């Protein structure tokens, strides 16, 4: 009868054991390998690195495995690891023009310098589930590449080594577009993970928050803009590119730049007609403006959402009236972090006995007061009636 008050220690121990057991599943099934996750669930790894805000494939893979494929939980594991790591400096700004692109598309121009590169995308696949088991001669999801040898696959045939000029730069040169991210490149900025978020936040901070924000939340927020909750015009995809970029760093003890690695990123520029705000550069009262998004790994859905939101929040900063959530930087930035959101929503599972007890006492005593008032009124009414009727 006293279980509610004692026994937490055993319960927690048993629960942890059950998690381990459920995660492993039946022993007859072989355990999934880290290399299998890294290579065959690559997009999941990308998402966990992006929202975990740590480009570490091994950590992301292990987190996915440890979280039974619950990606938000995996993000959480990566964040809790990342937060303990030492910061030793800032890299040189990455030159995405020199990206080794595996994919590069523009929705605004049919052809452009460097060309369109379709690369690996689900955009033009047919979403037909290829149900197993695999039978002789039948197609499965691997049949399209079965005859390819490993050699042909690497390096990726669609890799381009040519520098790819940006669509937005071209528009800018033609006097059609305001300056994009240029003034942010190389400028000193605060680190969102070391400083608390302050509202109003500068654009460099906003872009950091969006880069690690929850894909689902950002997607739906951007979607709401498109549905008229913040945008009154159709936006255009200036350019979306996915590929590998070199990370350069100058160690203070060396005093010259070295390459410390290569990361896969998705970069996006959205292009909008001006929404009609004031404060435009002279000659640009009519023209285009852009929104920018950059995400670790291949995640086009998110990079595009970030670009739309970046634009919307810039407009709000420039004086557009804030009427909808997608224009309100506090709404977007304070609610996009899924580690924060998941924790706070789910903390309702924790005991609240004490607070609920206080509420119970308060409600009961209010009810009692109310009840006795009611009784008194009834008594008074009966007395009044008795007097009237002369009883």
């Amino acid at each position, binding site marked *: *009868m*006293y279980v*509610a*008050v*004692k*026994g*937490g*220690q055993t*319960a*927690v121990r048993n629960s942890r054991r059950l998690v381990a057991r459920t995660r492993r599943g039946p022993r007859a099934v072989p355990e999934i390998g880290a290399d299998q996750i890294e290579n065959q669930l690559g997009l999941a790894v990308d998402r966990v690195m992006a929202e975990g805000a740590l480009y570490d494939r091994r950590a992301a893979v292990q987190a996915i495995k440890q979280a039974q494929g619950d990606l938000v939980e995996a993000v*959480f*594991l990566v*964040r*809790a690891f*990342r*937060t*303990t*790591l*030492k910061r030793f400096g800032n890299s040189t700004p990455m030159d995405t023009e020199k990206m080794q692109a595996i994919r590069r598309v523009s929705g605004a121009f049919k052809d452009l310098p460097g060309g369109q590169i379709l690369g690996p995308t689900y955009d033009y696949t047919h979403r037909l589930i290829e149900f197993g088991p695999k039978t002789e001669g039948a197609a499965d999801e691997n049949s399209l590449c079965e005859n390819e040898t490993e050699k042909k696959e690497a390096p990726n045939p669609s890799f381009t080594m040519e520098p790819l000029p940006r669509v937005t730069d071209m528009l800018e040169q033609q006097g059609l577009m305001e300056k994009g991210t240029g003034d942010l490149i190389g400028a000193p900025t605060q680190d969102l*993970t*070391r*400083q*608390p*978020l*302050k*509202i*109003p936040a500068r654009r460099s901070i906003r872009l950091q928050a969006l880069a690690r924000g929850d894909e689902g939340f950002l997607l739906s927020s951007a979607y709401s803009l498109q549905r008229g909750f913040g945008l009154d015009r159709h936006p255009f995809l200036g350019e979306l590119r996915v590929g590998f970029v070199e990370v350069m760093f100058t160690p203070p003890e060396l005093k010259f730049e070295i390459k410390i690695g290569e990361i896969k990123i998705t970069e996006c520029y959205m292009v909008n007609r001006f929404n009609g705000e004031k404060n435009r550069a002279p000659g640009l009262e009519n023209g285009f403006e852009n929104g920018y998004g950059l995400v670790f790994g291949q995640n086009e859905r998110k990079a595009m959402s970030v670009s739309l939101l970046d634009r919307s929040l810039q407009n709000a900063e420039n004086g557009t009236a804030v009427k909808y959530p997608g224009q309100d930087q*506090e709404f977007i930035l304070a609610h996009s972090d899924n*580690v*924060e959101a*998941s*924790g*706070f*929503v*789910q*903390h*309702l599972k*924790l*005991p*609240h*006995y*004490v*607070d609920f*007890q*206080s*509420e*119970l*006492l*308060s409600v009961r005593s*209010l009810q009692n*007061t109310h009840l006795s008032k009611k009784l008194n009124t009834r008594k008074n009414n009966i007395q009044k009636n008795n007097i009237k009727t002369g009883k």
Partner: protein
Amino acid sequence: MPSHYNFAYLDEQSKKMIRRAILKAMAIPGFQVPFGGREMPLPYGWGTGGIQLSASLLGEADILKVIDQGSDDTVNAVSIKDFFKRTAAVEITESTPHATLIQTRHRIPETPLTAGQIMVYQVPIPDPLQFIEPKRPEAAKMHAFEEYGAMYVKLYEDIARHGRIVTAFDYPVQVHHRYIASPSPIPKFDNPKLHQSPAIHLFGAGREKRIYAIPPYTDVVSLDFEDYPFELETWDESCAICGSPTSFLDEIIMDDQGNRMFVCSDSEYCQNTLKTNTLKKGAPCQK
């Protein structure tokens, strides 16, 4: 714990940053100091603010007590203790007087605190103005200008509607006659324990990334009106286990017939009172 995690999990740079925030918070009682809250391996809402405070304060000689809902053995308290056992290997206790640092969620122990002890509170919503003014820059201005009229209006509306102030927990307090602060979701029953307390009271909000403090021997006043003074909740019952008539009681539903029993929320206090009462009576308590 693998060796690439530091003592008490957080790296020393982060601990220093948090300690600086604590010092500022101590210097401006009740003022919410923003800090670079770190992600912790426990979820937001589970006490990340409190855990960060504890992590940056714990030394090898410290003795840690962790309670949740007043009890040492509720699941979240157990889990947090486990965490510090793994990462810091400090001594863990259930005894309130023995502890140097007490991390808590939703209660202040019944046993009075003493000078030198540190209470660490887990705080979900650090700003009592949050539900009056959800916009943070606005709320910050209201604090800066000591513009607390809206808070009193809210309390007044309670009185107009219900005949009394109905806030039962997380009852706002004014610290050192200046800042209005949230005592965290402790029952208002515990509010008076903050006034002129000899211990240090530190409040950590992990998700909202703010720290605030009530230094020792500080005036802490629960908001009220002259004609509607602050009131404490009371019970008709005494604790069914130890018989204490003065402690905060949790209600336990015994069956579906509406039978209930009341027991101390502070499990350690309950056990001690039971021991003392048993010694006095010379017979075990039948309840």
